[in-house]
């Protein structure tokens, strides 16, 4: 058996009590072994992020997930604050900033728009991976491996049953990443991380 990866979910939702999907996602993965659930708005309600603590968390994990609803084609603001503060020069980038070299990172996003509207010719004009370009480049500057996003589309229209199903998929994907089920190529070939599950079904 391969050695297990340790996963760190960097979660951000400013109004979790109003969320339908993210709450389900959390309860699906919260108790899984070797997955650390880290709720940024809960830990830092005043945005006063403890940089040393966050850096220690990063060092003790192998794969990071920015999990959040997709707000204005990006993340809720605390994720940006987290990036500004934690990914310091000399730690994450720069000549001596190699602490995160080789670590893997991806976004797990929920969005109200269906996949069709995130197309070049459609309402939102860009695809999700295109919107995520700043995150990808941030990861790259820090010498991290940026992986395709996990996306749940059309959240407003989902039934409770469908949400539960999506949550189980999320859980499966995180566990497969933890246990190193898929090769790097298999992951790279996906547009969305969600597509990995089709591989297992085949």
């Amino acid at each position, binding site marked *: 058996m391969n050695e297990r990866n340790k996963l760190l979910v960097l979660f951000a939702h400013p109004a979790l009590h109003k969320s339908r999907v993210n709450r389900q996602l959390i309860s699906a993965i919260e108790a899984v072994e070797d997955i650390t659930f880290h709720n940024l708005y809960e830990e830092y309600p005043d945005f*006063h*992020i403890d*940089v040393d603590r966050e850096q220690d968390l990063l060092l003790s994990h192998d794969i990071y997930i920015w999990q959040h609803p997709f707000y204005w084609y990006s993340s809720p603001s605390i994720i940006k604050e987290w990036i*500004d503060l934690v990914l310091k*020069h000399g730690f994450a980038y*720069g000549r001596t900033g190699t602490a995160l070299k080789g670590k893997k990172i991806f976004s797990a996003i929920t969005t109200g728009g269906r996949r069709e509207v995130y197309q070049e010719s459609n309402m939102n004009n860009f695809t999700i991976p295109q919107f995520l370009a700043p995150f990808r480049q941030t990861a790259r500057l820090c010498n991290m491996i940026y992986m395709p996003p996990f996306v749940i589309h059309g959240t407003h229209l989902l039934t409770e049953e469908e949400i539960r199903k999506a949550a189980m998929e999320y859980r499966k994907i995180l566990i497969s990443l933890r246990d190193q089920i898929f090769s790097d190529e298999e992951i790279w070939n996906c547009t969305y991380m969600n597509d990995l599950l089709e591989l297992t079904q085949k």
Partner: protein
Amino acid sequence: MHSQDFFYQAIIFLTAAVVSVPLMKRLGLGSALGYLLAGVLIGPYFFKLVGAEGIDIMHFAEFGVVMMLFLIGLEVRPSLLWNMRRSIFGLGGLQMLITSLGIGGISMFFGMNVLQAITIGLIFSMSSTAIVLQTLAEKGLMKTQAGQGSFSVLLFQDIAVIPILAILPLMANQVRARSVDMHEPVINETAVSALPGWQQVLLIVGLVTLIIIGGRFLARYVFRFIAQTGLREIFTATALLLVIGIAVATDRVGLSPALGTFLAGVVLADNEYRHELEANIEPFKGLLLGLFFITVGSSIDFHIFTDQPGTVLGILGILILVKFIILLFLGRFFRMRTGQEILFSFALAQSGEFAFVLISFSSQNAILPEHVSGIMLIVVALSMLVTPLLLIINDRLVQPLFIRAQKEHEADEITEQDNPVLIAGFGRFGVVIGRFLRANGIGATVLDSNPDNIQFLRKFGFKVYYGDANRAALLEAAGASKARVIIVAVDDREQINHIVEQVQRKYPHLKIFARACDVRHSFELNDMNIAGYRRETYDSSIDLATKVLGELGFSRYQANRAARSFRYHDEIMMKELHQLWHEDKRRYINEMRRFTQQLEKILISEKDHVLHESDHAWDIESRREEIREMYEMLTKDNEGEKDQDKT
């Protein structure tokens, strides 16, 4: 006294106290009444366990009153005393004047001569410092208008005893040096009284100056020196020596020892060893005061009472009624709020321990005939016995009337549901909490013992229970068994701790959040394992400081972040300090000194420590350097190439 007698007596007194005081406390009647009843029971009329020697013990036990005034002094800063001057001399002076005239007039009506009438008037105008302050403090009412007023009046009476003792013998035309005193149990003859008047005055002024200078500048070093020995009992001995020494010295120059120790307390109120002094004197004061109450109880001569019950009860009734009416009038005149002036009047309507002094003094000076002073003694003792009962009547029957009257007015606004939150104490701290919770749609039930607040609260539709949150019955009535959270927001640390203990014992399911008065108190609360606590002035201090930073040129966001960094830093410091506090507590005596040193160290380390580590992310200095270096290297390489070209 044989040591066996001593131990025998100790057993009687201690048993009486141990049996009756917890019983009375449990019934919500206060400790003073418990002690008094214990005294009555062991006295000559009932179990006959204590006879004439009770009076001697009373003289000794009065020292408890002296200690109490020292402790009260420790709580009163000089500036506070100055602010109260109008209340002390105006309210206190008028109280004595009008009451003396009123009671004197009545005495003349019953056939006393002018001298006797004045004497009786003065004696009965005195109230009991011991009972009133003890009871009010126990109920947490010292800081109310009524509490402050009572304190002023009692302080004035304390001052007034001295000239009265001087004038009475003059009036009786019997200048005898031998002073029999209640309040001066330590020594009985004043060596200075033989000196001419101006020398006496000089001595008094000298002593007061000595106390002030000694207390302000010298005491600190003496205490530090003693503390360094690390022996707790030596510190206790020093504290006792201080109080007794000042009592004796003030007595020698002809001042009341109670007044002298009170002054010493005031002078030491700013001293960093204040808490240690309090902790050391407190148990002695408590025991002596208890002993004093017991002896008062045992001194009540029920034979006189059974011989002429009509006379005794009549005088008692008139005394309390007259004093009550005059106090009520004064309370109104000095603009006390509704309810407060009634508490004030009930509290001071008795006669007190000064009366004992003055009665025996005037019968010795042959001003009062024997049978009159006998009746007066029992009336005074009975009036003291009745006081806690009067206060209970006020608490349970009279004050609720005001509240009910308001309730009927605005009954429609009161929602009768079980609120999830109880707030004990609704002063400036509790009010903000209550408003905040209400703004978020969370109902809170309020417990408060200040009737002033209640009127105000009703207006805003709070569900209010009047009374002391320490009382189990009140907690139950307010819904403690159904609530989820209790917030203890009263302003006295002792009371806060009491309530916390009480709630933890009886309602273990209730999550307790408490107001911490200062750093040390927050440690105490931390050790009690409650759900949360907050220092009462901490956050507002930081908020204000943040505004100041803004004024000094910080951008608002920078100032705001500085505040958050400071909070974070403070939290870590407090944890360290808490640990040190624990270590020091085991060593007892160095506590205060070490604590101050630690605080100093922290303050110094903060000075050199810029609290902006987390802001390095926005600090581009390191990146700028790296880029400059790279640029320099590139240009150097270019120059090198040029050099090569030349060769």
